[in-house]
């Protein structure tokens, strides 16, 4: 059998093959890569920078520490992403106790015993900006980390201890728990 390979026929076959191959490869499937992205901010931390210290206390004599007392006020440092919204909750004790637990002393917090400073200021006696003299049992909404683009917000806490007339001598302590969380604002 003789196959004629004249030019038009060869050209036609070549074009047809190329066309079919191209058709299969181009039209069969297409793949594209998208991306999911997210920018995670700094993790939120809170540190008790300074304990609320009443120092020496006498039986039957109540003692108050103001929230602007640089040496004795409780100081908590909250660190996170600047300008991020946070929520805070403070669990306050009703009494402080000896290490052995054989005596307790009442401790009270007034509705103005907390100041929240959203500047970089860490000194209770030189309050910068934020919420001054608010209720530690009801921390305000709308808290932010660092109103001046710093990454810190400070809590300054005062309080009052009320020793009884027959209070046992010794060292007393209690826990103050500060809980903070981003609120996504």
């Amino acid at each position, binding site marked *: 059998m003789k196959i004629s390979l004249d030019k*038009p*026929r060869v*050209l*036609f076959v070549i*074009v*047809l093959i190329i*066309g079919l191959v*191209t*058709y299969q490869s*181009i*039209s*069969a*499937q*297409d*793949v*594209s*890569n*998208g*991306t*999911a*992205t*997210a*920018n*995670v*901010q*700094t*993790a*939120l931390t809170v540190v008790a920078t300074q304990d609320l210290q009443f120092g020496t206390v006498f039986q039957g004599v109540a003692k108050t520490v103001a929230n602007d007392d640089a040496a004795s006020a409780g100081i908590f440092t909250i660190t996170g*992403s600047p300008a*991020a919204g946070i929520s805070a909750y403070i669990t306050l004790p009703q009494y402080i106790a000896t290490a052995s637990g054989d005596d307790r002393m009442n401790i009270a917090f007034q509705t103005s015993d907390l100041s929240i400073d959203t500047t970089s200021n860490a000194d209770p006696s030189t309050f910068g900006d934020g919420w001054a003299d608010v209720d530690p049992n009801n921390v305000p909404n709308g808290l932010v980390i660092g109103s001046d683009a710093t990454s810190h917000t400070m809590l300054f806490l005062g309080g009052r201890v009320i020793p009884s007339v027959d209070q046992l001598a010794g060292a007393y302590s209690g826990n103050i728990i500060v809980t903070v*969380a*981003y*609120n*996504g604002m």
Partner: protein
Amino acid sequence: MKKYSLVLFFCLIFLSAHLSAQNVTVNNNLTFGTVFPGIPKTISKTTAGLAAEFYVSGTAGNEVTIDFALPTYMNLGASNMQLIFRETDCAIDTSATPDQSSPEFNNLDPWHTLTYRIGSNGLYIWLGGIIVPGLTQTEGSYSSNIVITVTYTGN
């Protein structure tokens, strides 16, 4: 020669009609933006500019299958962050006037093959998702790939 040329001409016409049967492009990536540790964040498929948007071009009326290869984590070096796609996180619009806020086919499952016909204005696909950062999630920019495969069924 005339006969061959005629056949060749119709072959080329046929091929040219199908060479662009479908092509998928990424119009917008899935963008979660700023995320805080411990606070999950959801991007709705109907949120323009944040939801992922893919566009399939091709011959109107052609049927295609759409398959996603979806990540379950976003990564930053060795740090992972959980990424969730629910079975309603995808939407498609093949109409002449695609509308992301009110898509023609809503609440589709991106984990399964989707089969639709390309419309007169192509085919738009939108994809949302949820990320779940941990409380101590490492700070930084996370990313992961979303692979979409569009296949012409021949129907």
